[in-house]
């Protein structure tokens, strides 16, 4: 019953705020929404505790494996943990928006709660078509939230790109689901997995179904070349929404790929193609991140980059790599949430997000500055952050696969993305104001910028930043067990179809190995270097009238991220074909 409640609580509250939102006073709406998010967090935490020994399964409507129809909700520890992450970030975002939207309607709260329900539904669904359904629901709610400030031209443009590309991806996913259905006559993840287990490697239908289903999820996970929409949408969405987008929604795509591959396609299809596309997104996102001067867009590219690393981690498909990815995911969710909230506080106070216009203006906001710094350091992989632990564990696990390139890739990505964030911190919170009025078209999201940021806007950020630096201390033993169960298809199918628990042998991981600490130290040092170098470059660019040094390499990169929906659709088609080619030849 708990699994049903995880979905019912936010939905019921959302329906209430939608029905009575016009009459309820604002504090009541705030309190109801926050209470719902906290309740979901408590329920998810309870599920996490109960799932530690045995995967929780709830067949809806009294159907079950004996009848051959019906839909199960399935919660293994990692799924429950992801639902918990979503609920906690939603709670943080709701606290933040307490004073953020001065003229908000209850619609915002309704959509936030629906987004939480959609994400939980996607995580818990044990059925391919149900996953598609909740994937679409996430997309539709996210579309409404992205376009929330529909009076801004950039907002509607970013939202329409987002809606078109994510919907296209979802339809490809549905095509893949239909192919699986046509072959096996099953829609349940567990049942379809069992039916496909005997398929020969290289079976065209199975490969195609995997590629099509994954394409939709990779669009959401922002793998190369499906990542274009993300920067457009994240840069324009309201700040509390960005927290959920970057912190959980993107990671849901990674989770979807990993879950579907492990349970349904684990036998016949290799994951090499996903690793390549993830690595490409990691590199490209890191480079683009350094080139940005709009803070939210910079953070969005850093999300693309980090999500690429997560994809590489799950593509390794070993318990160790998944455990490392779980660390990194938790660390990234908290760090990125903190950074977006800090950026939102800046936007709110100064009415701009441009790095040049903001120079030195953060000096009066010490807590926001600390949030930004801590978030940047967590991204850089400062121990005991989740990123540091995650990259160490994953690196150790993929070394056995011969993926020597993971270490330099993760160091480069962490150094570049964190360097860009630290550069912004140094300029905004430590630099000297340039003078002159800000020339950015963005309006503050609260009608009139608040003179002093209220504690509700500052506290969630600093709490998340602190959490990001502590996620590496998550106990390793239960996480290893959870990762082992996540990567073993039998540990998923047996509880669902046979009603009995199945455990998988856990491999102990060592998040704090000495070599990992050395790598962390090097990465943080590199990030500081990147920040210093990039800051000089930005200053030079600001001094010159036209960016001359932008040069031959960066201009095509900027031009490729054109905001043109036709370009994005062409890249999507090419990306699906590329993934197929890579999967086939891997």
């Amino acid at each position, binding site marked *: 019953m708990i699994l049903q409640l995880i979905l019912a609580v936010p939905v019921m509250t959302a329906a209430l705020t939608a029905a009575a939102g016009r009459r309820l006073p604002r504090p009541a709406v705030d309190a109801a929404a926050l209470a719902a998010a906290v309740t979901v967090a408590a329920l998810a935490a309870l599920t996490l505790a109960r799932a530690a020994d045995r995967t929780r399964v709830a067949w809806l409507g009294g159907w079950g494996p004996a009848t051959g129809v019906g839909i199960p909700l399935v919660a293994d520890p990692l799924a429950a943990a992801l639902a918990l992450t979503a609920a906690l970030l939603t709670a943080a975002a709701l606290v933040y928006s307490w004073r953020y939207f001065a003229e908000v309607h209850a619609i915002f709260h309704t959509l936030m709660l629906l987004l939480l329900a959609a994400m939980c539904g996607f995580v818990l669904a044990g059925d391919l078509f149900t996953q598609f359904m909740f994937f*679409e629901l996430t997309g539709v709610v996210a579309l409404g939230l992205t376009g929330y400030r529909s009076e801004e031209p950039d907002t509607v443009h970013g939202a329409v790109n987002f*809606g*078109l590309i994510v919907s296209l991806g979802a339809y490809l996913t549905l095509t893949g689901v239909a192919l699986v259905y046509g072959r096996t006559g099953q829609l349940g993840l567990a049942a379809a997995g069992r039916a496909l287990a005997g398929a020969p490697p290289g079976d065209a239908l199975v490969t195609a179904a995997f590629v099509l289903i994954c394409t939709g999820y990779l669009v959401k996970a922002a793998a190369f070349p499906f990542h274009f929409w993300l920067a457009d949408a994240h840069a324009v969405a309201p700040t509390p929404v960005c927290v959920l987008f970057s912190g959980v929604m993107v990671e849901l795509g990674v989770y979807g790929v990993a879950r579907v591959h492990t349970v349904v396609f684990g036998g016949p299809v290799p994951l090499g193609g996903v690793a390549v596309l993830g690595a490409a997104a990691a590199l490209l996102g890191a480079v683009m991140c350094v080139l940005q001067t709009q803070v939210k867009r910079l953070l969005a590219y850093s999300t693309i980059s980090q999500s690429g690393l997560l994809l590489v981690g799950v593509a390794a498909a070993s318990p160790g790599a998944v455990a490392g990815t779980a660390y990194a995911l938790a660390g990234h969710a908290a760090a990125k949430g903190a950074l977006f909230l800090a950026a939102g506080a800046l936007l709110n106070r100064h009415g701009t997000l441009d790095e040049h216009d903001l120079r030195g203006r953060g000096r009066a906001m010490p807590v926001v500055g600390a949030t930004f710094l801590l978030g940047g350091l967590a991204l850089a992989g400062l121990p005991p952050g989740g990123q540091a632990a995650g990259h160490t564990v994953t690196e150790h696990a993929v070394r056995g696969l011969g993926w020597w390139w993971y270490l330099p890739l993760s160091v480069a990505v962490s150094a570049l993305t964190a360097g860009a964030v630290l550069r912004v911190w140094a300029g905004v919170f430590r630099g000297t104001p340039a003078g002159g009025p800000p020339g950015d078209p963005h309006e503050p999201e609260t009608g009139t910028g608040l003179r002093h940021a209220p504690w509700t806007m500052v506290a969630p950020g600093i709490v998340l930043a602190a959490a990001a630096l502590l996620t590496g201390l998550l106990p390793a033993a239960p996480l290893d067990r959870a990762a082992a169960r996540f990567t073993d298809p039998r540990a998923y199918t047996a509880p669902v179809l046979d009603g009995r628990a199945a455990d998988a042998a856990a491999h102990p991981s060592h998040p704090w190995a000495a070599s990992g600490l050395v790598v962390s130290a090097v990465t943080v040092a590199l990030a500081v270097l990147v920040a210093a170098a990039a800051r000089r470059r930005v200053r030079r660019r600001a001094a010159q009238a036209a960016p001359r040094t932008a040069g031959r390499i960066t201009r095509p990169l900027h031009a490729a991220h054109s905001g043109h929906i036709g370009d994005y659709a062409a890249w999507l088609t090419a990306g699906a074909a590329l993934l197929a080619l890579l999967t086939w030849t891997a």
Partner: protein
Amino acid sequence: MSHLPHLTAGYIMLIGLYGIVTSRDLVHAVVCLSVSQSGTYVLLLAIGYRHGATAPVFSDRPPPTAGRPVTDPVVQAMTLTDIVVGAVVTALLLALAVQIAHRRGTLDPGELRSLEP
């Protein structure tokens, strides 16, 4: 050609994609998205079709063991769901297109200023 309907579905999806790629009007692009989605309806229904079968409704005739076989009710339910999803997505995207026309004065994706600085 026992796979012609399945291939038709793929063709519809691709032609919709082509429309989006070459689109010079966002309303047109949104309609092309619907075209592309129609391919999934065709694929689902083609997978569920059975020669000589009738609709899976038994209020006025005997169930399949005695009567004729029926087509797949599961894909029909999925298509129904899919149609609602498609209608909703189309409505929201058109709403956004209205706003773009207001704010930017054009619906040509080529004339919309890039969001990349």
